[in-house]
């Protein structure tokens, strides 16, 4: 059966017809609905007019990526989100934590784990997330290495990445002491002494870490300050530099991607 042409809708009575949309710059006052529709745009415009952030956002997010970009390219972002998760959970753990070596530290961790609402969950996220972050950092580094993405002009980004790797390890090392249980204490003793085995500067390094010749009253607060103030700031700043260089230089194509010449160039070659 052939499709019949659609009949025009019967004309509505004038009372039921929708009023034609009033232009915003019209003489009459705009309705509250229109204002609400415009509110978001107005706010963004207001900020953008004063910061020009939209250009930077477009520059950062709407980049061209090479053909062959695949899931391996998400490992860097995954690492960054692992860091953000550590940062957020860490901030909230700091609300309960007490770096007191005479029992207070262990007690505060016990309190977080057993008594605080969702405490075990948030602490678990921080604890297991640290391992996730270390694993992701290494996978990300492996991706960069095997895809040859460290080559010119991205060498500086590789160097920054190495510093980020070291800082991540410093975070793991200093964070391990904070629960202040037997495992934390002895692991730190061993870790500090491993630092001390470096010739010439080793003894000074281990004394610096402990804040003295023996594991002392300020060792725990020293580790806490390094863990939650010194290194996170450096990490955040260097992640910013790392991201800037990624946006600036673009990502590299996977090594198996063949170069496609434009047709007019191919003709010119022949």
């Amino acid at each position, binding site marked *: 059966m052939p499709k019949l042409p659609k009949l025009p809708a019967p004309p509505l009575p004038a009372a039921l017809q929708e009023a034609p949309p009033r232009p915003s710059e019209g003489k009459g006052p705009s309705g509250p609905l229109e204002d609400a529709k415009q509110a978001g745009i107005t706010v963004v415009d207001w900020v953008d007019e004063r910061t020009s952030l939209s250009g930077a956002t477009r520059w950062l997010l709407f980049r061209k990526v090479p053909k062959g970009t695949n899931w391996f390219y998400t490992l860097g972002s995954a690492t960054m989100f692992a860091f953000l998760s550590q940062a957020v959970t860490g901030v909230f753990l700091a609300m309960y934590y007490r770096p007191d070596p005479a*029992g207070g530290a262990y007690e505060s961790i016990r309190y977080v784990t057993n008594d605080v609402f969702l405490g075990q969950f948030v602490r678990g996220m921080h604890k297991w997330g640290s391992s996730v972050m270390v694993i992701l950092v290494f996978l990300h580094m492996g991706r960069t290495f095997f895809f040859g993405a460290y080559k010119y002009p991205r060498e500086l980004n590789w160097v920054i990445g190495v510093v980020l790797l070291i800082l991540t390890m410093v975070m793991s090392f200093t964070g391990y002491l904070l629960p202040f249980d037997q495992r934390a204490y*002895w692991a730190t*003793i061993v870790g500090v002494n491993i630092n001390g*085995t470096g010739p010439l500067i080793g003894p000074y390094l281990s004394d610096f870490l402990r804040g003295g010749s*023996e594991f002392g009253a300020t060792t725990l607060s020293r580790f806490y300050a390094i863990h939650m103030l010194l290194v996170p700031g450096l990490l955040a700043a260097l992640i910013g530099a790392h991201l800037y260089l990624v946006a600036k230089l673009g990502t590299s194509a996977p090594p198996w991607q063949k170069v496609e010449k434009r047709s007019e160039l191919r003709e010119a070659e022949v």
Partner: protein
Amino acid sequence: MSDKRAKHTSKSKYTLDRQIPGAFEGETVTRRAFMTGTAHTAGAIAATAFTLPALGFAVGPIFKSTPHRWESVGPVDSFSDTNYIPVVMTVTPNIGEAGKTTVYVRKFNPEIDTDPYDRETPYIAISSRCAHLGCPVRWVDAAERFICPCHGGVYDLLGRRVGGPPVRPLDRFYTRVSGEDVEVGPRFSVNSELRRFSPRDPGQPLDGVGQYLYPSRPGAQKL
């Protein structure tokens, strides 16, 4: 035009010759250069003013010397000259359990302690801190060995390494008798010939060039 360029290329060091407005007789530094230098210097001084104290604050403990502590560990007749008695003493006060360590104490025995360096101490006090990486060793009576649970370091009766990864014998403590009590004092490290050195951290060898590769801490005091 041509003489103007010539004047520009042959710069005199005097501002007056370069016809800079407001120049003084004999002035060589332009005000712009002076202001730049002043601003940079002021910035450098301000940055140093908070960086150096903060750095010194963080690094200071390396150079600090802690006073020697002597702690009574029990009456004289509670120790034998053939076997070790473990005693717990405080190394770092005011931090509870974390500041305590186990010390194995034995009376000086001229038949065993034949090394010349041992003769001065009335009691042999051996630290339980493993010379590999600092785990706590324990004295195993049946084996007559100190054994470390972490990485398998084994030491003999005198604390000399007989197996595993440690790089030197177990550390010792100075001892003295005060009244009826044995007192244990500051720590010292020994090399494989039981020669004494100021205390080093675990993992730092003291044989050969070891004592120079791993210098003692600046705050270490001679007893």
